[in-house]
């Protein structure tokens, strides 16, 4: 089939080429020291009607340890082909099952949307079959090719009474880990408030067969100044409830990356039946070009918080300035705590140019 696709899919002559050049400074503040690094990266995209290619290259120089790194990676390289009603994509491609949440536990890849940032976890070598049933309903089947594990995903998506609904199933089997996730998600409106949520069942059968459930409910709302026609204040909040057992460690990747505590410490540090996490995002549009906001993620069990204020300013049609600060308030043992491995604060200033 792969050979057949490659033979029958010739990139069309119509194409779009573009990219983005980023340069920035990262400062990491630890208890006794700080580390600064500068970086430049470039993303290049070449899109045909039936094929997409994207590469990313990054230069990074760390002033603290005088370390220079260069990295180049293929981000996308896949072809598309349509057999009657079924769309097939083959190659390195993004597989993303977002529905508007800040953190998505029912996504194809866990951790793909940690803290609302794009991550390389979305890009996988896979074959995807998509079958649209009507304008709003579809079925998707993903078979990932990875030497370390076998992974398949299935998604059914539809719209009922203006609510976007999906049923997701992911099964991963490898030498280190066997697990499956079954989840549902919804997104819609309740009067002027956007609401969404998900329910997930994780079955980890690597060692002891452990079942873990995770629940999420979120809402977003816009408040417009000046009788509803002026600048906008945007609010988004999300509440996550994770059943506290061995299974939930796999889900922690979705909650903002590796925590300073070890897995064992983490398990021991929670004496309640559930891990409770609250996320918040407030953004104020200063004008048509710039916005200021703050993103927070808090463990309701120990009160530790990651606080991420941000500022964005579109300087012209091609150039954007972004400033982010991440601050961890907790102690070493806390869920969002600092310690030997994590800095207390991170400052990132980045200038992006698109072409």
């Amino acid at each position, binding site marked *: 089939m792969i050979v057949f696709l490659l033979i029958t899919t010739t990139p069309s002559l119509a194409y779009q080429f573009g990219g983005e050049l980023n340069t920035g400074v990262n400062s990491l503040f630890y208890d006794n020291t700080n580390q600064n690094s500068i970086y430049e990266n470039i993303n290049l995209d070449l899109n045909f009607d039936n094929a997409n290619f994207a590469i990313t290259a990054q230069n990074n120089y760390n002033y603290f340890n005088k370390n220079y790194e260069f990295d180049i990676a293929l981000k996308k390289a896949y072809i598309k082909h349509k057999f009657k009603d079924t769309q097939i994509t083959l190659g390195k491609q993004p597989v993303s099952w977002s529905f508007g949440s800040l953190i998505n536990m029912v996504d194809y890849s866990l951790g793909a949307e940690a803290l609302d940032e794009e991550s390389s976890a979305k890009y996988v070598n896979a074959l995807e079959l998509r079958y*649209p049933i009507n304008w709003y309903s579809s079925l998707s089947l993903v078979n990932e090719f990875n030497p370390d594990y076998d992974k398949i995903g299935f998604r059914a998506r539809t719209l009922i009474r203006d609510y976007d609904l999906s049923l997701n199933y992911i099964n991963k089997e490898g030498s280190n880990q066997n697990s499956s996730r079954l989840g549902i998600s919804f997104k819609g409106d309740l009067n002027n408030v956007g609401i969404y949520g998900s329910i997930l069942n994780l079955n980890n059968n690597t060692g002891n067969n452990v079942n873990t459930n995770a629940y999420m409910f979120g809402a977003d709302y816009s408040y417009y100044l000046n009788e509803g026609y002026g600048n906008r204040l945007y609010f988004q909040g999300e509440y996550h409830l994770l059943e506290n057992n061995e299974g939930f460690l796999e889900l922690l990747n979705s909650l903002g990356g590796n925590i300073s505590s070890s897995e064992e410490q983490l398990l021991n540090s929670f004496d309640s039946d559930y891990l409770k996490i609250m996320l918040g995002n407030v953004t104020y549009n200063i004008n048509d070009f710039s916005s200021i906001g703050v993103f927070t993620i808090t463990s309701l069990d120990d009160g530790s918080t990651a606080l991420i204020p941000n500022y964005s300013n579109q300087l012209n049609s091609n150039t954007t300035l972004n400033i982010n600060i991440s601050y961890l308030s907790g102690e070493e043992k806390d869920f969002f705590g600092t310690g030997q491995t994590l800095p207390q604060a991170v400052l990132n200033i980045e200038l992006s140019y698109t072409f």
Partner: protein
Amino acid sequence: MKKIILFLMIALVVFSTTVGAITAEEIIQRRDDNEFIKSARVESTMIINNSGRELEKKMVSLIEGDNALSEFTNSMDRGTKFLKRDDNLWMFFPDAEDIVKLSGHMLERGMMGSDFSYKDMMESEKLIELYNFELVGEEEYNGRPCYKIEATKVEGAEVSYYKRIAWIDKERFIGLREDLYAESGRLLKEIVVTRTEEIQGRWYPMESVMENKLRENTSTTFIINSIEFNPEIPEGTFSLESLQ
């Protein structure tokens, strides 16, 4: 005999006045005939101006009834797509190739940072179905004789503006200026059409400037680079699949 002549003259005057008078609804109907789009393919540019700074956005849109599919082509937003089906708006993010349904409250927001809200761009009903109209006068605007029409929203209609005052070209039946008001009577936005063109037998606004009166020194210029009325649109165009 004199009485008969006088009667005939009066009758003639009354008759000719009746035939010549045009109602506000008829003016709007004729404007809708020009400006209301059943289906079209539009290539357009938005220039967002704020205190001397400018952003330019380009897009290609397919429109059919209540449905629209738009793709941005400028470098900053290249590949970003919107699908509008009835009152629902879906957005495609090109990097991760995600399709997300936008919450309803987001539709009030300025589209891609412009003074045009998503609702401004998406209102697809004919004005005649949304507002009650009154012809309040005739004025010259930019050298063109115009009807001045005041429109107040029909009770229960879902519209972005409670009241609109429009200057409509008497000869071409095209809106040349429109002031948009909140229910409190506060002026919110002003749209001025700066270029019109006759295309496929109908006059159409090709360039307009919207000023948000609640913000200082901001405006958005909307330029139609090309428009094709009633093009052939393949079946399945207005679907989530076509966003991908």
